């Protein structure tokens, strides 16, 4: 039994230095995830800011009849279309469209994947943050206003610090989803962790070890993210009884 496992292990990981394939795959997966995460958070913050600023200020801006009302109205519409399209279509389809249609002339599939996953994640991050802003008691906004804060100051000093604390679990959940979702990058020829495991399987005709290794690596990555989330949440909880 043990001998068979050892042979299996040697075949899949030691022969031809196949473990290096997993390392290269892991690096690709981490690169895509990291860049997509940054893009996603950036888009998410901007979209959430537009949507909630519009929702919270449209009446007042309309009353004042300022130009900014129309600018914000258009931006809000764009954001809503973006959210509808991204959340309404599968990630793999978006990835394929990005690679074969939008960036058809590009050979940088890694870059395309970063962009596609980032654009996708941004929609979910935006709604998480917007939900966090909406969950803040209206009294907090009123207290800010009554002290003479304008909207941006109320957001910056009062609302956003509370939002960050509230949305952290949901945000980390999205990061976890993202890291696993990059496993479809093989569709556009990227040799990410999943693809590499599958490549080993197709060369050694042995599925058990490479696929379980891949699953184990994802599990460790996610557990690391969860541990980071726990630490951050504990640190932000200092102002509670």
């Amino acid at each position, binding site marked *: 039994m043990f001998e068979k496992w050892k042979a299996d292990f040697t075949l899949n990981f030691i022969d031809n230095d196949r473990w290096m394939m997993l390392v290269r795959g892991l690096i690709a997966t981490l690169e895509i995830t990291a860049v997509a995460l940054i893009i996603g958070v950036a888009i998410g913050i901007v979209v959430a800011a537009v949507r909630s600023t519009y929702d919270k200020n449209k*009446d*007042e801006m309309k*009353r*004042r*009849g300022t130009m900014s009302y129309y600018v914000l109205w258009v931006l809000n519409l764009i954001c809503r279309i973006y959210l509808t399209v991204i959340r309404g279509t599968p990630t793999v389809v978006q990835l394929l469209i990005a690679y074969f249609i939008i960036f058809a002339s590009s050979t940088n599939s890694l870059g395309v994947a970063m962009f596609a996953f980032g654009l996708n994640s941004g929609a979910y991050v935006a709604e998480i943050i917007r939900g966090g802003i909406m969950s803040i*008691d209206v*009294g*907090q906004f*009123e*207290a800010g*206003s*009554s*002290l*003479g*804060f*304008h909207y941006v*100051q109320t957001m910056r*000093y*009062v609302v956003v*610090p*509370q939002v960050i*604390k509230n949305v952290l679990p949901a945000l980390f959940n999205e990061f976890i989803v993202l890291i696993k979702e990059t496993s479809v990058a093989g569709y556009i020829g990227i040799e990410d962790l999943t693809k590499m495991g599958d490549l080993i399987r197709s060369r050694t005709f042995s599925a058990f070890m490479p696929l379980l290794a891949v699953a184990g690596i994802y599990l460790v990555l996610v557990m690391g993210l969860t541990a980071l989330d726990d630490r951050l949440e504990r640190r932000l909880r200092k*102002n*509670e*009884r």
Partner: protein
Amino acid sequence: MNDDKVMIRVEHLKKYYNDHTIHAIDDVSVEIDKGEVVCIIGPSGSGKSTLLRSLNLLEMPTAGHIFVDGVDITDPKIDINLHRQKMGMVFQHFNLFPNMTVLKNMTIAPEKVLKEAKQEVDARARALLERVNLADRADAYPDQLSGGQKQRIAIVRALMMQPEIMLFDEPTSALDPEMVGEVLDVMKDLAKEGMTMAVVTHEMGFAREVAERIVFMDAGKIVEIGSPEDIFENPKSERLQDFLAKVL
């Protein structure tokens, strides 16, 4: 228009909801003089909170005008944030910022809005905390305070902006009965110092003792307005008589 004595003049204020089917405030006119304490009483749903919240435009009136120091703040061209700096507000549910310590709650607005020096603001905050007997809670977070403590902090937080008028929206309604007194005491002190105050309250004892004038509202209208004696000893309208029979 610019009467030196008058702090706030409300003219024909109306606030309608739901396509004008609900009249929260229905043609209300009233004046508040400098240094005057006015209590607004009335049954729930009578529009008294809406009226108070209109005074710093937390509620946007449907029609009418509000003059503060002679300036019409309902004019869309007015920077309302500038006016709110001069009008302190205390809420029923305190609305302290849970992400900041007591001291930070008090100092953030003077620091960021009025651009005052941190040292100065800190000193002023500590002096105010001393006055409301909460000097030892400066570094506590709001979640660690009792309701009465929270409301006293909310009052001194508003005072940190050195407002010309203080608005109180049912400041003791969310408090346990044994904590009402400590908050009312702070408000009484404030009244004695000559602060202009508009107070929506269910505390009839406080209204009778502290208010110079009492406004009785019902169904969005001012039904009666007068001195505490007028209101409590000689209520003229049937609605006020009914109301007093229920609450006293």
